[in-house]
């Protein structure tokens, strides 16, 4: 009798000790971001933020160990698709996350549906992405959010004639469409709509075209990374002195690049969901910890990664560690929390992010350039969906 009890006890003990090693108790997240190629800075920001989140919040949630598998897709969509498929089929990941560019997210979307694996978009910003699968949730932003808000702001500030200049791909087209529609609806005018090739070395001819149209403001969207060159050429050409305001979504004054852009960029007004100088305690702690750990400033891509991890952790807490895709997505819907960027939530209908959009102006603070927020539009839903 005693012997049997002891054996049972030993077996139970063994089970307890053995349990962390079994796959059942590990939650795997496949993080697919561009770590090489032209979008590499996006991947680095997200990777850094994800690591930071795990340092701060531990790697165990709801009794399960959370393991992040980092993969580089170089922003090439067919790589993304293969890597996502391998992660799902071979590594049996419970989440796929990341996605630096829209085509990459779109390529992986059918897989999320087939495998019922939640897909967390941490960077890509085209509206349609979340409509491509019921298992997609987004923690970054949509370009429509920022573009519509900056249009509202422009109309209020007597900007009637605008030129749009966007990179020629889906997010650019989104930005252009939502900004133009809003401006036109408000009685403004788009005098010229310029599309710039995505891989573009020199903005000179396009800027000259914009200057010749003599608008009140130039609306600009280029992917984060090209903004610096653009702004410098904008001032070099004297467009600022000609009285043309530079406005746009916040990609152009990306925090990652802002410190090196030079004084040329001061005064640029953008609408976006995150600035490293957002005046909340949470954000100050976030920026301090981030800069201490990695020696560069976090940008809006990083909060997408940070909040993406938070969403995953909280969803797991809610399901008590259950990794069923439907339950996780259900748990994510309507979730609200405080992020370094301010209060955010996941829209229960569209699984897209609802967040404050801030109007910011580039200023010099303590000798460093920052996007200083001066107006807030609260709880903005993605206009790409509400419009329908």
């Amino acid at each position, binding site marked *: 009798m005693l012997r049997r009890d002891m054996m049972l006890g030993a077996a139970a003990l063994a089970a307890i000790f053995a349990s962390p090693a079994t796959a059942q108790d590990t939650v795997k997240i496949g993080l697919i971001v561009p770590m090489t190629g032209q979008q590499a800075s996006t991947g680095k920001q997200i990777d850094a933020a994800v690591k930071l989140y795990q340092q701060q919040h531990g790697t165990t949630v709801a009794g399960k160990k959370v393991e992040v598998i980092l993969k580089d897709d170089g922003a090439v969509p067919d790589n993304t698709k293969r890597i996502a498929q391998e992660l799902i089929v071979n590594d049996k990941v419970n989440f796929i996350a990341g996605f630096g560019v829209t085509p990459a997210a779109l390529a992986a979307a059918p897989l999320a549906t087939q495998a019922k694996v939640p897909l967390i978009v941490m960077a890509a910003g085209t509206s349609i992405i979340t409509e491509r699968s019921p298992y997609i949730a987004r923690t970054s932003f949509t370009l429509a959010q920022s573009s519509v808000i900056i249009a509202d702001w422009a109309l209020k500030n007597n900007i009637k004639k605008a030129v749009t200049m966007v990179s020629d791909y889906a997010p650019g087209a989104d930005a252009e469409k939502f900004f133009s529609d809003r401006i036109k609806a408000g009685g403004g005018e788009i005098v010229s709509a*310029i599309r710039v090739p995505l891989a573009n*070395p020199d903005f000179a001819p396009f800027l*000259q075209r914009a200057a010749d149209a003599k608008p009140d403001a130039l609306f600009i969207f280029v992917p984060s990374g090209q903004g610096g*060159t653009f702004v410098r050429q904008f*001032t070099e050409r004297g467009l600022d002195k000609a009285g043309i305001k530079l406005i746009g979504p916040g990609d152009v004054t990306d925090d990652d690049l802002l410190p*090196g852009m030079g004084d040329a960029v001061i005064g640029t007004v953008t609408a976006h969901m995150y600035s490293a100088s957002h005046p909340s305690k949470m954000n100050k702690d976030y920026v301090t910890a981030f800069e201490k750990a990695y020696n560069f400033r976090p940008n809006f891509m990083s909060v997408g990664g940070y909040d993406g991890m938070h969403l995953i952790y909280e969803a797991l807490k809610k399901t008590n560690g259950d990794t069923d895709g439907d339950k996780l997505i259900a748990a994510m819907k309507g979730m609200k929390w405080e992020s370094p960027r301010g209060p955010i939530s996941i829209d229960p209908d569209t699984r897209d992010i609802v967040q404050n959009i801030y109007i910011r102006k580039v200023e010099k603070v303590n000798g460093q350039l920052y996007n200083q927020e001066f107006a807030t539009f609260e709880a903005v839903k993605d206009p790409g969906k509400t419009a329908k």
Partner: protein
Amino acid sequence: MLTILFDGIAYGMLLFVVSCGLAVTLGLMNFVNLAHGAFAMAGGYITVILVNRLGLPFLASLPLAFAFTAIIGAVFERTLYVHVYTKSHLEQVLFTIGLVFMSVAAVDYVMGSQQQFVSIPSYLQGQINFFGVGIGRYRLLIILVCGLLTVALQFALASTRFGARLRAAVDDARVARGLGINVNAVFAITFAVGSGLAGLGGALGAEILGLDPHFPLKFLIYFLIVVTVGGTSSITGPFIASLVLGIGDVAGKYYVPQFGSFVIYTIMIVVLIWRPQGLFSRAVAK
């Protein structure tokens, strides 16, 4: 209108300075150096470090960018490149692409993957209004520097003793050796100068082309276009090709923005079909 022409010239001049080193190694030494852009990138990053971190004046850092890149070029030439001169073109492609991959990853790690900007002094910013034509000061500087360089290069190749030795070494290395020319040294110096020029181009171009670790791959195509369209037998060929491409590209993007990116490729294909050896070359290349 004239502003567009001016911008095009400046852009073309910039392309020329970055690419002429490639024209020299490819045309004169018959070596396919796809890692050429890596030297341009090195020059750009050296300037960033000198100006932004060490606080050197921008103009003073330009010759230093040239010198440092030339030294790097010389070291690589002596240790690595020298073994690959005799290999086939395809193997040279493999070798230099390998170097590009290494440089991209290394720079990415050391300097970060984001774009870098050189702090340009205020007297080089903005435009001068010259009879109604907006002239960017910085672009004017580029035109001046590049113009001087072109003249100097042409002179050095055509009228100096070194130029004559180089041409002799290229035409027939064995005979040149027999005449007492130190072919290895001539090649090493040429290679170093070519790299140095790329570095200078990178330093000047960082402001206009942008500077990130992906630079060598992003602009490789442009360098190659300049060299093939211009032909590899002289300096004037690539020079004129650069101008044509620069003006064509800028004007194309201004007047027909939706077809902007076709222009440069179309020019190239048409020229190469019309004159397979490039615009300006004696049709004797092998």
